């Protein structure tokens, strides 16, 4: 009896720890390196929300899209996840995501006006908001300043024609040893970025038909292809390049269209001697500075979640300026909130200035569920055209045919009024 009494306070303490409600485990899917970093941000959140435990599960980027769809198909979605913002439409169309309008109107922690408008729009499907931008990303130029200077340029030309002349000079100076730019054949993003520099969208009729044959797209596509035709870009994929940073350091190519995560990777992976000899610049446009992809990742809550309140609390927490700043420091992922750009370390980094400029000009891709599949076709088609099996115009026409086929079901559903 005595022994039991001695234990009593301990028991009380234990039951107090459990609180009124049971412990909640939030399953949070994140991709690649972000998931590793997230683990470090979770203890603070868990301290603020006793009884809530966040389990961060990692998806590899290259398999993430297929895995997400598998989860939707298999009813094994987590509570919330990091979502490439071109995928928001797809998952929203499938009814997998919870609309966040209610939470947004009740909360002042996530003010829409503080976000880059092009990025914020990627999360809007129809009239509803299905995600909150977490970090932003766009594609632009990473380049070797020393090679540029050796070619006689002080800054990167901002229009397509001038840019190409410069690439040709770099190529000529190296006696064919060096390429001007790396455009990996396994990435569709460089083509898409160029295509988004026109007002004409690549899908028409409410995103139910392809519109690749429009002159603007064909012009962008032809420009892209011409870089290969003139031997300014090597016709290779990333896995053939093997180590992009080594090759960049060796000067195998002078320019590379990629995203902000590579700021950190370049700093870490390039030899110290190269520090100060590389930089970032906005994409050249048809007639001067123009748009690029509204990329990045959003935070989205799944409809099947049993803990919508806790999931939203986590979204709010990760959207806090202080947490965004910390996340930037840990990952180099650019903050989604513009106010964070005005302060501290983001502003101080010379490499981010080009991104800041480009982000104000980003354009979202069409929001349809079949987008990723269509982009895969774009990538494959580009490869065929690079290999001269088709002309750019023929490739664009074939893309329309394929897109129309992929969008057939969507077309029927839209006509039947089953989709917004």
């Amino acid at each position, binding site marked *: 009896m005595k022994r039991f009494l001695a234990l009593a306070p301990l028991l009380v303490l234990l039951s107090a720890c459990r609180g009124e409600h049971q412990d909640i485990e939030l399953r949070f899917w994140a991709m690649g390196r972000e998931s590793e970093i997230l683990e470090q941000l979770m203890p603070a959140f868990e301290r603020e929300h006793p009884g809530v435990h966040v389990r961060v599960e990692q998806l590899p980027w290259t398999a993430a899209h297929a895995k997400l769809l598998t989860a939707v198909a298999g009813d094994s979605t987590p509570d919330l996840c990091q979502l490439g913002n071109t995928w928001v439409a797809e998952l929203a169309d499938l009814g997998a995501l919870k609309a966040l309008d209610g939470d947004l109107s009740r909360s002042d922690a996530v003010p829409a006006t503080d976000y880059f408008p092009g990025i914020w729009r990627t999360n809007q499907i129809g009239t509803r908001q299905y995600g909150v931008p977490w970090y932003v990303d766009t594609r632009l130029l990473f380049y070797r300043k020393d090679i540029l200077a050796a070619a006689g340029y002080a800054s990167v030309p901002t229009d397509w024609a001038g840019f190409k002349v410069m690439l040709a000079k770099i190529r000529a100076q190296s006696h064919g040893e060096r390429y001007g730019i790396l455009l990996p054949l396994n990435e569709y993003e460089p083509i898409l970025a160029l295509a988004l520099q026109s007002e004409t969208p690549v899908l028409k009729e409410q995103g139910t038909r392809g519109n690749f044959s429009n002159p603007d797209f064909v012009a962008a596509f032809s420009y892209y292809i011409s870089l290969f035709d003139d031997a300014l870009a090597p016709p290779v994929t990333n*896995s053939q390049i093997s180590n992009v940073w080594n090759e960049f350091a060796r000067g195998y190519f002078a320019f590379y269209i990629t995203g902000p995560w590579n700021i950190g990777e370049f700093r870490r992976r390039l030899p110290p001697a190269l520090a100060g000899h590389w930089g970032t610049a906005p994409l050249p446009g048809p007639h001067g500075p123009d748009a690029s992809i509204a990329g990045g990742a959003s935070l989205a809550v799944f409809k099947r979640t049993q803990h919508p309140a806790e999931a939203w609390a986590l979204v709010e927490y990760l959207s806090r300026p202080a947490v965004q700043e910390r996340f930037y420091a840990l990952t180099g992922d650019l903050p989604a909130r513009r106010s964070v750009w005005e302060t501290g370390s983001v502003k101080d980094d010379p490499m981010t200035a080009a991104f800041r400029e480009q982000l104000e000009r980003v354009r979202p891709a069409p929001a349809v569920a079949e987008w990723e599949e269509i982009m895969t076709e774009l990538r494959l088609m580009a*490869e065929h055209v690079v290999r001269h099996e088709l002309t750019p115009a023929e490739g664009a026409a074939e893309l329309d045919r394929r897109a129309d086929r992929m969008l057939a079901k969507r077309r029927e559903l839209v006509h039947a009024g089953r989709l917004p």
Partner: protein
Amino acid sequence: MTRRWLGWLYAGPALLVLAIFFVVPVLAALLLSVTDYDLYAIASIHNLRFVGLRNYADLLSNPLFWQALWNTVYFVVVGVPLSLAASLGGAVLVHSKVARFKGFFRTAYFAPSITTVVAVAVIWRYLLHTRYGLINYLLSMLHIAPIDWLGDPHWSMPAIILFAVWKNFGYNLVILLAALGTIPADLYEAAELDGAGAFAQFRHITLPGIRGTLGFVGLLTMAGYFQLFAEPYVMTQGGPAQSTLSVLYLLYDEGFKWWNLGRASAVAFVLFLLMYATALLQHRWTREHRP
């Protein structure tokens, strides 16, 4: 009574598992292949429609399918004979009277065949690297210009065949070795007395003696090669320019990447018919040529 049904008690569990997890899905696949089951249908079953044979018609009019079919047939038609020839050659070597350390060689040859495709594909991807790969380095010693093995659509399939031959070399070799062991040694001795050369012996004694096993091995190898997937998934991701996209890869993409389950099921049945027809042909051939 109990004795009469005892067999079901033994066989029952396995048969039940097969029924639930194999027979039912196969029948369901047949049903799926005449619907437009896709992500929209997964989201809401009201978006599911019966489409008859449209999936099959779509498939046959899809250039990508023909490319995948061509690639797979290429892989099978070139890969299987090469694979068999290499294994048979190896088996004859190991079986040779003058061969030393037979046990060691048998093990050494067999090792690649038990390895995980993904793991060894990683190695081969590097061996085949255009600029840093060992294979191109060896070729350069023979003054052959570097080949872009995995980047040139003309070389990607040969590269994968090379890899597959290496991987399957030992398995077939061991089975053929067993068959060689069943050929009576006095047959060779008699032939030698008759003055038959090594090649004549091979043709008139060895080949007929292992014909049955060769057919069996060929059938197994072919069935395996028709299911080409992991090699291109890891080494080329179906590229370059879809030159290593196989029928099974297409099925994976359609089914588990884009969740067009109706269309993917149609691919599955076409693959099945293809394998079945080939097996039938080969079976007939082996039977007709049986001595």
